[in-house]
């Protein structure tokens, strides 16, 4: 046996590899880092690179084609319009990570919104109770979906298709029964309505930007220092600096622009009031919309859960190889159930925002394209439909891409054809994203990277 333990013939061949192995974990120069990154991109692991570059191209295109696309008012519109599908998509990322789908998330959001509107406008519950009712509804829906998929083991596609139909009925019932208005329930509560439509004070926006940048920098720098102290390969400090700098620039520019007065009548002007000319003072519409804060908070929490906790690790494991996860002692059923609960919880928030957006709910709440656009957002952002790959950030980037397309197209082409082209382009972009996903998987298979 001793000749075995000593060495095998190809050991010589792997000596240079061994030498490389001893240097790589310690080094971590910028070039190394860059080379590894390029290797990953070429191997098909592009993350949100296609979506981010697509977003930049789209913004540039629409801005040039139609300068008012870049107006202050439209900038605020974009952030608000994207918020509902981003929230919904963030929940779907969890479900997609397991290779499952929730076709009912949109109408589930509708059910939550209708519940909130009914108890708020019909029964005069205060806003905290009304929002809580929406969230509880969402969690109950999630538990129901999760049990049917994980315990009864009906394919999620079928379960959620059935629920998609059923929930439309529930919506119809909710808007036509109980106290208060029937058919179209308008929400009177100012807090609920300003969730979507309201803005933070200007100092609030700056505070948010400062918190985001400082928090990101703190996490990155302490993490890097810890790894360095432990003698492990760490991200080069220059790269970290560039990332923090980039985030700071984006945050500052965004907050600065959103804090500018974007009202159309911002200067004082003269109006005709009852035959008399009266000078009225300029109106003020400024500040970062509240939805930005909501998205940032949800993004930070869900990213933390997925990347820093054992639970998140188990979600990726079950999505990557459920059998391996089961053998490693991970309760795969409970993980499967939990992602549906998280998804419906986030859908309930999206439902609250949708109701807030229109200041009312009706029977078609959350139906139609709501869900499909959210799935598209997650996939365009880089989340795989095959499970095991995706991040909450994908939902944000993908949601922005879709909103920019919808918003830009409607500016560009006025008249009836606007929405015709918009559907076609949105569909095309989704196909493109799915193709990138599928091709990068194939590429990953052949190059050994995924």
């Amino acid at each position, binding site marked *: *046996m001793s000749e*075995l*333990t000593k060495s*095998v*013939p*190809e050991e010589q061949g*792997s000596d240079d*590899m*061994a030498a*490389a*192995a001893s240097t*790589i*974990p310690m080094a971590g120069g910028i070039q190394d880092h860059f080379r590894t990154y390029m290797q990953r991109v070429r*191997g098909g692991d592009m993350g949100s690179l296609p979506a981010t570059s697509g977003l930049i191209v789209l913004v540039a295109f629409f801005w040039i084609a139609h300068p008012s696309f870049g107006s202050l008012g439209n900038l605020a519109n974009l952030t608000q319009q994207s918020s509902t599908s981003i929230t919904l998509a963030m929940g779907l990322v969890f479900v997609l990570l397991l290779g499952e789908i929730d076709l009912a998330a949109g109408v589930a959001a509708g059910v939550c919104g209708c519940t909130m509107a009914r108890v708020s406008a019909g029964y005069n519950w205060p806003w905290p109770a009304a929002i809580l009712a929406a969230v509880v509804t969402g969690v109950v829906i999630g538990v129901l979906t999760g049990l049917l998929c994980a315990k009864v083991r009906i394919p999620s596609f079928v379960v959620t298709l059935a629920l998609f139909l059923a929930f439309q009925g529930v919506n119809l019932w909710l808007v036509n029964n109980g106290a208060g208005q029937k058919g179209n329930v308008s929400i009177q509560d100012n807090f609920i309505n300003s969730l979507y439509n309201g803005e933070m004070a200007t100092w609030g926006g700056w505070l948010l930007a400062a918190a985001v940048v400082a928090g990101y920098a703190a996490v990155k720098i302490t993490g890097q220092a*810890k*790894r360095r102290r*432990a*003698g*492990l*390969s760490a991200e080069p400090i220059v790269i970290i600096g560039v990332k923090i700098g980039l985030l700071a620039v984006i945050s500052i520019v965004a907050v600065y622009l959103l804090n500018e007065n974007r009202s159309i009548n911002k200067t004082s002007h003269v109006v005709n009031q009852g035959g008399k000319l009266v000078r009225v003072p300029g109106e003020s519409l400024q500040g970062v919309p509240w939805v930005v804060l909501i998205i940032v908070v949800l993004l930070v929490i869900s990213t933390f859960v997925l990347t*820093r*906790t*054992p639970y998140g*690790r*188990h979600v*990726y*494991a079950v*999505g*990557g*190889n459920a*059998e*391996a*996860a089961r*053998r*490693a*002692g*991970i309760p795969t059923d409970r993980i499967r159930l939990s992602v549906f609960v998280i998804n419906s919880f986030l859908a309930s928030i999206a439902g609250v925002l949708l109701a807030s957006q229109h200041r009312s709910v009706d029977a078609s709440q959350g139906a139609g394209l709501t869900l499909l656009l959210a799935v598209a957002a997650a996939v365009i952002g880089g989340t795989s439909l095959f499970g*095991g*790959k995706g991040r909450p950030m994908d939902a944000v980037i993908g949601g922005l891409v879709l909103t920019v397309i919808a918003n830009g197209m409607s500016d560009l082409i006025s008249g009836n054809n606007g929405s015709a082209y918009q559907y076609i382009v949105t569909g095309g972009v989704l196909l493109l994203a799915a193709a990138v996903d599928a091709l990068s998987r194939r590429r*990953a298979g052949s190059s*050994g*990277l*995924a």
Partner: protein
Amino acid sequence: MTSESILQLRGINKSFGAVDVLHDVDFDVVPGEVVALVGDNGAGKSTLVKCIGGIYPIDSGSYVYDGREVTVHNPRDAAALGIEIVYQDLALCDNLDIVQNMFLGRERKTGITLDEISMEKAAQETLRSLSVRTVKSVRQRVSSLSGGQRQTVAIAKAVLWNSKVVLLDEPTAALGVAQTAQVLDLVRRLADQGLGVVLISHNMNDVLQVADTIAVLYLGRMAAHVKRSEVDHTQLVELITAGRSGSIGMAPSSTGATS
């Protein structure tokens, strides 16, 4: 191989419905030794391994581990005892890296967050202790590894958990010549570190090269458990195909009865 055995199975029976898969099987694993478990297709090798690993409950028989009679209900029980199975299909998550796979299901935590640094160091040390030098970085995704490297990671996982018994199900089945040599080398090193290693293999060369003792299953019965030095290739093939070879193996009547 009685008193010093870490794992001692006596009179194990297992049937699936009307089909008797294991019949009065005795099996021993000794620390520091590689025992090869061989047998034709359907002889019951995989079933025996799954009974040991707690995936199938045994119908009857005694399961003595480290001198204590124990009952193993599920893979977690087996893992808690220090029994680790490395499956043929490897059971690694392609989308996770080496560290994440090695600690899967047993992550180290500080508070509620993952303790990546200590896990990464432990994974590095384990691979180093096994003289694994073919893996570039422990933060590589498993999907980027070759078959031999994957097998190495799966085996290293067992070592990381201070397992006392490691069962390897066809570890070289899908590997090339050089990678097979690497893995067999690793199997030997595991035993040299004092672990009890069970190697299931169809490849007689592998078995004869690395095993200390060889257990032969024939139609659900333990036909023979012999020292490596007592048999040669031809005898081994006879034992596998007929249940006996000369004076070794089952009595002619019992082989006749089962066929």
